[in-house]
């Protein structure tokens, strides 16, 4: 019987989510709103059953390694389910029930990633250049297909293929940052990154650009141990923001990025238009106060995009400063556990891959929350695991699956019969 601590923590997750759901139902009953208790319980119960199946699948596969990551992801994703139930249990523009299938499906993706990649993860090392080349091609194809905004392609359904850039470029980086490289290789590497970022700029997908740029610098720092990468990144980012914030007052071309930065620096002069989302998010924070209005008692619908990009504002209103503080603690706990797996890995590719996956999630979380609390401009990316979404949910769970696969290999005693790698950098 494997993974007893995970099972025990999952019981806690179930109790916690059920208690939140009961509170939501009680609040609905007391304030005379429509009561969907039966349906909500069925959907939440279904989600918990899927979580249980994931646990059983990991046990059946004999997966070893960290046992707190799956409960943490399960709780965060379960909070996402609760948010959806709290907002009425339907996803506008989506086929009925599809959001639930995505939630359950992303758990399946997690299990699938572990199943495929454990013991075989070094294959990805071999495919690194392929993944790297696929990245700009993917964005280019999307632009040629005429989806100008954030890569949302509506042909096969509501998908955001650019989300795939995250695993592709993580694998590419983990494979590239290997040993001392030739100048030509480095030039091609940088060319691929530059091409991807420039193509993303055409789509105004600044959130993705920020994630990928931060990923590149963080991975360079972790792989080399040189602080200059982080410092250079910080300096470039602040220079860029400063330059863009002066672009509009100087009457230069006012593009999407400039508008977002000026709406961030000064949302007050136009609170009903450019500053609308920022200001409404701040209203939600303030309405929540220290302990929140209580689940189901706030007015999250007043905040635009509260189900996806601004879900943190809705949570801050209903759970308050304390509740969202605990939420951030859970996120940081998740990241620390992921980085711990990376630290335990002896094979450098595994180490870099796990680091890259966790870094993507950590940066995405930080950028999303910072945008809501006005610590940075709004970039239009989701909060991992909690936000409503399709591709982004699947990819986030997939990244966790890769990390768990690394963790399994680490526990199995990696390195036996594996080709050794030259010391990097």
């Amino acid at each position, binding site marked *: 019987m494997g993974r007893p601590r995970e099972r025990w923590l999952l019981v806690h997750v179930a109790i916690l989510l059920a208690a939140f759901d009961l509170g939501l139902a009680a609040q609905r009953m007391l304030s005379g709103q429509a009561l969907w208790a039966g349906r909500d319980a069925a959907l939440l119960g279904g989600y918990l059953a899927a979580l249980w199946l994931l646990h059983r699948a990991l046990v059946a596969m004999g997966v070893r390694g960290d046992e707190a990551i799956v409960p943490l992801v399960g709780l965060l994703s379960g909070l996402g389910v609760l948010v959806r139930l709290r907002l009425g249990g339907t996803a506008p523009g989506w086929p009925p029930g599809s959001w639930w299938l995505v939630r359950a499906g992303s758990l399946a993706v997690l299990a699938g990633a572990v199943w495929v990649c454990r013991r075989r993860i070094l294959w990805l090392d071999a495919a690194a250049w392929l993944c790297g080349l696929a990245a700009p091609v993917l964005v280019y194809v999307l632009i040629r297909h005429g989806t100008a905004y954030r890569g949302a392609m509506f042909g096969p359904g509501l998908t955001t293929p650019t989300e795939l850039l995250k695993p592709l470029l993580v694998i590419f980086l983990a494979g590239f940052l290997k040993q001392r490289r030739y100048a030509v290789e480095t030039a091609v590497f940088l060319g691929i990154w530059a091409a991807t970022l420039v193509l993303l700029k055409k789509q105004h997908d600044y959130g993705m650009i920020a994630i990928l740029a931060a990923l590149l610098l963080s991975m360079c720092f972790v792989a080399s141990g040189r602080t200059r990468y982080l410092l250079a990144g910080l300096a470039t980012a602040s220079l860029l923001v400063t330059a863009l914030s002066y672009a509009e007052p100087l009457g230069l071309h006012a593009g999407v990025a400039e508008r977002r930065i000026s709406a961030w620096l000064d949302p007050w002069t136009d*609170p009903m238009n450019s500053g609308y989302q920022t200001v409404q998010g701040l209203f939600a924070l303030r309405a929540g106060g220290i302990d929140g209005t209580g689940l189901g008692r706030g007015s999250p619908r007043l905040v635009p995009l509260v189900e996806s990009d601004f879900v943190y504002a809705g949570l801050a209103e209903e759970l308050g400063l304390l509740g969202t503080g605990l939420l951030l603690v859970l996120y940081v*706990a998740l*990241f620390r556990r992921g980085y711990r797996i990376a630290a335990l890995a002896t094979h450098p590719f595994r180490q870099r891959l796990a680091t890259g996956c966790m870094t993507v999630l950590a940066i995405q979380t930080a950028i999303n929350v910072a945008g809501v609390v006005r610590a940075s401009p709004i970039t239009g990316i989701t909060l991992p695991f909690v936000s409503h979404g399709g591709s982004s949910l699947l990819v986030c769970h997939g990244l966790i699956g890769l990390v768990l696969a690394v963790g399994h290999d680490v526990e199995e005693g990696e390195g036996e019969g594996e080709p050794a790698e030259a010391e990097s950098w």
Partner: protein
Amino acid sequence: MDLDQALALQRLGALVLLGWFAGRVARVRVPSRAPSASRALLAYTAAIAGVFAAIFSCQTFWTLFAGDLPHYRQVERFDPRVWQLSRAGDRRAVTDRKGVELIRNEARDGRVLRVYPRGAETAHVTGYFDRVYGKSGIEGACDAYLATARRSAFAALSELSQPTGLPAPLRLTLDVRLEHAACSALAGRRGAVVVLNPVQGDVLVLASSPSFDPSRVFESFPELQADPARPLLDRALQGLYPPGSTFKPVVAATALAAGYPLATAFECGPNGYLPPGDTRRILDYEAAERVGWPGHGLLDLPRATAWSSNTYFAWLGVQLGGPALLAGARSMGWERAWDLVPGAWTGPDLVASAGRRPHGRQKAGDTARCAIGQSEILISPLGLATVAGTIANYGTVTPPRLLLDSAGAGGWRAMPARTARDVQRLMRGVVELPGGTGRGLRLPGLAVAGKTGTAQAHGWVIAFAPAERATLALAVVIENGGTGSRAAVPVARAVLEAARAAGYFPAAREH
């Protein structure tokens, strides 16, 4: 325990559950073997935690302290949460200083309505609360406090001990008995009455006329807006009028503080005073009314004040000079936009318009007209009541306040106590001396001090009583009502009589 409090317990429970889970996770052991990680990875992990701590401190700032930022307060009215008035108890009641209800919630046909039992009498203070036309007055200024759904769980639970089980009402410093007397005396004429306690700054009456019924704003708002009498305008706070002769005590105080003795004399003949470099003579009002009036003759400060001699004060103002005169007015809070609901609470409501004054470099003629409260000088009734209160309070300016349970802002000294006592005696003379313009304020058994004024057909009176230990200071203005002594004094008298009946002058004796 009401619904709010039950739900407060529930949400605290949810937080405890989350914290419990975080603790559980922390206790799960990390897999075996010591980390062989590079120092860079450990540093990076710590940096990520630091980034989240920084973001959370930003969130803490916006959650707890955003209300202190003027920018934020300016846009706060775009927050639609305020309109969620679905259940009784979602908004606090408001009472006067004695606990008489000014606003309460009432259920009618399954809806909860805001009801204003004193109706038009307190309409400008209570304001209105309407889904279409917004909110004003206390409903606007103290919105964040009145909306109990926004209070924290701790606040909700701390109110468990309320005897009624309802959230504690907001108590104002108003006194509805005096407010009723003031509104009855105004009798629908255009004008305003402000009564203060000069020592604490408590606003006892804030009456503006004509008024409106705040419960019926939804039906009548367009007509109220179109009404030429402008019933929605809070004349007591937002009305700005030339003070006329009620400015003369300020001139007298400035002169006395500058060392002019009470006996300062000037010959006030029938031809008035011609300021140097000017072509228009400043005449006493008797000269305009009575043909062949011989003039007051030689006047000193007490008699000039009692008879309200324009000639004398125009001359005195020119002697003092424009800058000194205006500095004197400013030190008494002339240019302050008094905010009746201090900082952290407030929206843009219940703030008095700041008084205006000319720049200090005008010609002697303008200074002379300014000294008799004409020309470019303007003040709100609340501002002038505060000036009267400053004199009554021996020269210390006490900022007016409207919330009984919040400490008022700190005051400051505008003139020496001795000067203020002299001005009190001058104003006492206005009521008591034969021929004084404030004779109508004589009340048996009560020492009233006052000063009347008339400017551009608006009648003013300011007064305080008892003269040397004042518990009450007031200002009355009647628009286009004729002279102050004819139009405004009866209103002031009615308010003073109501105050006496209400026990505001317990130890009053005739001096």
